[in-house]
């Protein structure tokens, strides 16, 4: 794998300004992060530590309070740069559109021609296992399926950097592993750089080239773990020994942080 930097956060912090009597919230940082071109990077961390905030800043949806953001050697500010796709933690499927119209949404707005739209949407829907639901409305789907609609909607735009914020949060553990395999397939086929935010340590351990473990709020990287998986990995690695080592290492780091995030004293095992 090349070590060419695809996106970079430099000394980034984000403080949500005070509103209506609430004090300002220091949500993130300062953090530094280099996403390598084509890698699969995951962020794990306790609830509320600033993971989603980190993604917003990286995507150009929220300005960093301090620091700079780079994507493909250009500074990110004010706008979402071309080539970034994002799937949010919340369900963002449009309830007024069918599954296929949801998937085609971005392409239509971008003025891509109809035949090409059909081709890409068909492919993305079958890839995400939604082919039989093309004419359904999101209200008729489960939460996990809606999240897949959002992934399909992002995929068809062929982003070079894909940001995924807990996309499988609504899934049971088994389906989640299978979706993980699909995600790996997608990553291999598109050659895109993937940033996955997850709270599931096993998911991060199984999917990623590298995993950034974040501290409790304000989120900072405690350590970046390299997994050393080959590119054609899949969920069968769960049976291996290395997998246990990685999750063990992650849990060791995050245990006290998670306690801290819950308001308990941290550090004292």
């Amino acid at each position: 794998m090349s070590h060419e930097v695809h996106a970079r956060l430099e000394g980034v912090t984000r403080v949500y300004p005070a509103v209506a009597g609430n004090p300002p919230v220091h949500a993130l940082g300062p953090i530094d992060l280099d996403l390598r071109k084509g890698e699969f990077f995951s962020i794990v961390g306790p609830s509320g530590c600033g993971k989603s905030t980190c993604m917003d800043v990286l995507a150009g949806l929220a300005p960093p309070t301090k620091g700079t953001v780079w994507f493909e050697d250009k500074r990110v500010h004010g706008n979402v740069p071309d080539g970034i796709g994002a799937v949010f933690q919340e369900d963002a499927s449009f309830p007024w559109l069918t599954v296929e119209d949801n998937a085609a949404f971005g392409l239509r707005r971008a003025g891509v021609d109809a035949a090409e739209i059909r081709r890409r949407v068909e492919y993305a829907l079958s890839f995400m296992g939604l082919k039989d639901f093309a004419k359904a409305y999101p209200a008729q789907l489960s939460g996990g399926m809606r999240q897949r609609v959002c992934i399909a909607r992002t995929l068809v735009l062929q982003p070079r950097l894909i940001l995924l914020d807990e996309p499988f949060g609504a899934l049971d553990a088994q389906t989640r592993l299978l979706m993980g395999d699909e995600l790996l397939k997608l990553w291999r086929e598109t050659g895109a750089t993937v940033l996955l935010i997850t709270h599931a340590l096993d998911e991060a351990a199984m999917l990623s080239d590298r995993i950034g473990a974040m501290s409790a709020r304000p989120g900072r990287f405690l350590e970046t773990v390299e997994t050393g998986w080959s590119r054609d990995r899949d969920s069968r690695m769960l049976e291996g020994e290395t997998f246990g080592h990685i999750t063990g290492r992650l849990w060791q780091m995050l245990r006290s942080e998670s306690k801290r995030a819950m308001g308990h004293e941290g550090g004292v095992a």
Partner: protein
Amino acid sequence: MAGTQATYSRKDHERAERLRYLGDIALVILGIVVVWQILHMLAGDVAISSPLATAIRAGELLGSANFWPHAGETAKALVYALVIALLIGIGVGTWLGAHKLSGAVAEPILVALYSLPKITLYPLILLIFGLGIEAKIAFGAIHGVIPVTIFTMNAVKNINRVFLRSARVMKLTTMQTVTRILLPATLPEIVSGLRVGFSLTLLGVVIGELFSSHRGMGFLVMRAIGLHDVSTMMAVTLILAVAAVAISSILLYIDNRLHRRT
């Protein structure tokens, strides 16, 4: 597939629901007719004509060429008033919804206006618009615009933020965000506003016609009262009521369909 069975039972369920719904409606109509008949027997022909006599008179009216220009006049005023109420209501509501502070200031004012008996404004309307159709349209629109504004304002204020963030990631222009995200996302609520606004607008138009007008359904009612023609007065009212209930039901149906998706 496992889904098929669920679909069947849901269809059966929906059919049963619909039957029960129709049964309820029949019962309500029957109740109204019975009460009406009793009132007629108590008050006599001079005050309340019987359901049957009213229905016959309504049939005559519907078959007469003289009736339709009046119905057309009311319909025209109603449509204009609704369009104006929608345009202003959606415009103002969107603006208030997008600007939290002005929305917070405006809401209690709107609610106060909503409950204000707008008949007090009628002399003013007449002064401004004169005796023609314009006054009826204005008076109808005044009634309809407030619910449309309130519903639109709340829909815009409560729009799911993640839709707007999706719009930004997909690099939509401001215009595309308004027409492709904001409008469809708020449409169910706007239709609810229109549904509430519709009855009020019709009320406004007809009240406008009751006084100082020479055309329209309201005028027919007033003229019948002047002539002590009780059955005509009640027949016109009946036609109005049936039309209003029919249109309201259609709007309610659309409203429910749109809301079921969200």
